[in-house]
């Protein structure tokens, strides 16, 4: 595994939807290079015969009874929204002009 390049950091930040200034990208490239190099050692012991664990304890999926439950009042939820109108979240356009 190679260390992470500046272009890659910029690309991944875009995937993560975090706008970064050029100096932040520089800093992050250095930081992540060191971090990735250090954690890459996990692959040394992660051999094919070891099963993966995604959850700390064995659990089963849980369903609740299919009975309506009271929801939060709309006005309480919208009180914390950056913008709202007619009892709904007001958001920017989802797609660009094109």
């Amino acid at each position, binding site marked *: *595994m190679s260390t*992470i390049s500046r272009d*890659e*950091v910029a690309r*991944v*930040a*875009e*995937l*993560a*939807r*975090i*706008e*970064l200034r050029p100096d*932040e990208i520089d*800093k*992050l490239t250095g*930081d*992540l290079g*060191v*971090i*990735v190099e*250090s*954690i*890459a*050692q*996990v*692959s*040394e*012991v*992660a*051999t094919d015969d*070891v*099963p*993966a*664990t*995604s*959850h*700390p*304890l064995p*659990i089963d*999926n*849980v369903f*609740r009874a299919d009975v309506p439950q009271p929801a*939060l*009042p709309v006005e*309480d*939820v919208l*009180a*914390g*929204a*950056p*913008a709202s109108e007619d009892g709904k*979240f007001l*958001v*920017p*356009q*989802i*797609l*660009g*002009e094109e």
Partner: protein
Amino acid sequence: MTSDVTRLSAAAQAALLRTSEISSVELTRAHLDRISAVEPAVNAFLHVSEPEALAQAAAVDARRAAGEELHELAGVPIAVKDIVVTKGIPTTAASKILEGWVPPYDATIVERIKGAGLPILGKTNLDEFAMGSSTEHSAYGDTRNPWDLDRIPGGSGGGSAAAVAAFEAPLAVGTDTGGSIRQPASVTGTVGVKPTYGAVSRYGLIAMASSLDQAGPVTRTVLDSALLQEVLGGYDPRDSTSIPEALPSPVAAARRGALGDLSGLRVGVVKELSGEGYQAGVRASFEASLDLLRAAGAEVVEVSCPSFGYALGAYYLIMPSEASSNLAKFDGMRFGLRVEPSEGPVTAERVMSATRGAGFGDEVKRRVVLGTYALSAGYYDAYYGSAQKVRTLVQRDFDAAFGVADVLVSPTTPTTAFKLGEKLDDPLAMYLNDVATIPANLAGIPGLSLPSGLSDDGLPVGFQILAPAKADDRLYLVGAALEAALENGWGAPLLAQAPELEVAR
């Protein structure tokens, strides 16, 4: 009398309430006064909910006067880490992206705290979204260690630990994803417990890494933690990972442990979690505690957990991966900050990027980008997939170790509290603080840290006890026994040796 009550344990405060020697309003007022006096120096709180706390206290006093049967801790005030949502009280996760947000609902653990009649004093400081080991990543300023105001109080729950250590609150709630309850407890001379994963509901915690996060008690004594775990714990239908069965009583175990007899108990010292990299004064304090356990009748054996050397690496792949997914909800659409791009079209996607660029701090950006990278096409198997396999290996190591020992022990942290700023520019050095606490989170098992004394630098050292999943009672049994033996030697709790804080008048 009111000038001294804040020094008492929560159990002792509760006893005064039961015999009506003090009211909850007086007790709560005493803590609010202490908060006003020391907050300029400590900065443990992001928000003090004085009117709400006094109203809750008055309500519990009225219930007591009416002869109602109350919870043992009813009327004893508590502080809550600001990553737990509280209806009507601002909750920020110490992030600019949630500045001023007032949640429309209570976390399950907050409902339980209110149900048991514990007035909530306020919300405590933390590293932004609980990402850090020093509370220096808070967007609202550093919290300072009451033992030495130039040093870190640990993190992410530095606010909760410092509040309890500075006698601003007898009880606090923390959350522990890789050590955020135990490591602050260690460096502030307090007690902190990460319960078994699923023993305490996660509903209403602002999630960092869902398969690792666990809320738990932050207190000054082992018994107080046991009492608080009984308030917080138990099955919650709103958390699908909640354990649907009752666990053995922590309080009964703590009371039994305080009698001091550990005959027949096997204590395993984890070879990989001591020695190299651990401060000499930390090792000496740890060894002295092992002697006390032997004197109490325990058999001390050495165990080896060879995969622990890979636990830190696995953690720093799994945690950021889960965090990058959990933090996707902060998109500037439904709550919190919204920032429009300075130029170009105002689309949802560009608003989201601008909002997160402005609202997230450096460490959050680092982890979200790292997690996105680890999960991205071409890297998933090598990074995230490998980390999940290490998780299996760590669990196998624990299974083998618990085959020969009833509990495992180690120093909680390799060093005592370091200076503010000392590790801020070196993320890897910061991450190493959690090397001894992380394995428990990967395996979902419970862990407790209690103060074992002072290092040669005069700062507190933490002693970590780990038990198998769902055997949280063993932490309390062994913790209470060790605490009793230690305090017998000191003649008082360790915090009695902490310097008096300058108080504002």
